[in-house]
């Protein structure tokens, strides 16, 4: 098997790895780096569960090969918390019941992070449009929208 050497930064940590060129980025993150917070839903770019940030921009890690992440800075859901204090988004989702089964949550949190990074005070409509690419089969989205609004308030209050 021909492997390819890649170097990338994931959640602030540099990694060097030899990867099989056919491995998707999400499989690499989960299987090689053990970052199983990023979930695999549809593997066809429809559900948004595998959303991660690459250089600050949300992308679907099932639609990328790991070798394409050469030199990239990747943030997964594991980057949100330092292991002690929750990120304002996580606090808000906790408080506002922004999740039920939790399968879609890592993708939604990362997409919500990008939305709030670009616009600290989005409207409910902007949030709804913004998370249109993240499917949730439990919540009906209302509590998710309220959670992101709450997170925006928390972040603004802390700023």
């Amino acid at each position, binding site marked *: 098997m021909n492997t390819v050497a890649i170097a990338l930064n994931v959640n602030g940590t540099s990694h060097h790895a030899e990867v099989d*060129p*056919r491995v*998707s980025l999400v499989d690499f993150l989960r299987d090689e780096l053990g970052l199983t917070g990023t979930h695999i839903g549809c*593997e*066809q*770019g429809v559900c*948004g569960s595998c*959303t991660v940030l690459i250089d600050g*921009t*949300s*992308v*679907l890690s*099932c*639609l*990328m*090969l790991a*070798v*394409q992440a*050469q030199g990239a800075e990747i943030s997964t859901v594991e980057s949100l918390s330092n292991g002690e204090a929750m990120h304002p988004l996580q606090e808000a989702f906790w408080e506002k019941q922004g999740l039920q089964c939790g399968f879609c949550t890592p993708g939604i949190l990362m*997409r919500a992070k*990008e939305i709030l990074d670009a616009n600290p005070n989005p409207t409910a409509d902007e949030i709804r449009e*913004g998370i*249109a*690419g993240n499917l949730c089969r439990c919540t009906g989205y209302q509590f998710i929208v309220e959670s992101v609004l709450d997170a925006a308030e928390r972040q603004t209050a802390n700023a």
Partner: protein
Amino acid sequence: MPLMHFRLASPASLIDINGVDELDYIERKNGMLSIGARTRQAQILTSEAAANAAPLLVEAISYIGHAQIRNRGTVAGSAAHADPAAEVPAALIALGADLECVSRAGTRAVAAADFFTGPFQTVLSDDELLTEIRVPAWPDGTGSAWMELTRIYHGFPVVGAGAVVHMSDGTIDRAGLGLCGMAATPIGADAAIDVLVGSAPSAELVEDATSAALADLEPPADVHGSTAYRTRAGRAYVRRTLTAAITNAGGTL
């Protein structure tokens, strides 16, 4: 990538152009909007040059998937992928774009109307790369509209249509139309353009042009729509986009 996930495609080798920064640009030059092959769809949505030169392309791209898809997907990638139901190919046909294809043998520009040869098939040969899309900047006052029928919000189009209309002294002097989901390839509709150009807009003219656009089509049937359903929906979307484009160009029906 989904094709590989589904084991429908298993290419022996893949060449990634993501590292080629020189192919990342949106430029207005010589009356054309030039888009490099690595330019993301999301970049078109925020590009002033694209908004000025080709609002139809911007509008069509706004319907593609969702933010995460547009952040990574490229305009040229959608063209080269040649999905007959996708937005970009039909919009490029409507606008009269050229696609620059480069191989070691040389460079050639192919009109969008000639580029697509079948479902997921183009004139690109095995050793050729689509490097640039050139969209002619239509004159000020041009009206355009993109509309599509999807099963779910921002889902893949069942059918879609894009129209571009320019008027002068109350008469349509230039028009473009592109349809997706209506045939084995994205298609233009020269017969409809012939009906429109040289005439003053009216509801009857739009109806005649719509009939001309649909005349020879027998849209493919699948689980999302029968031939009859697509024909009927396609007729409605052509009529609506033409009406909207004429209105946006300052015309009245």
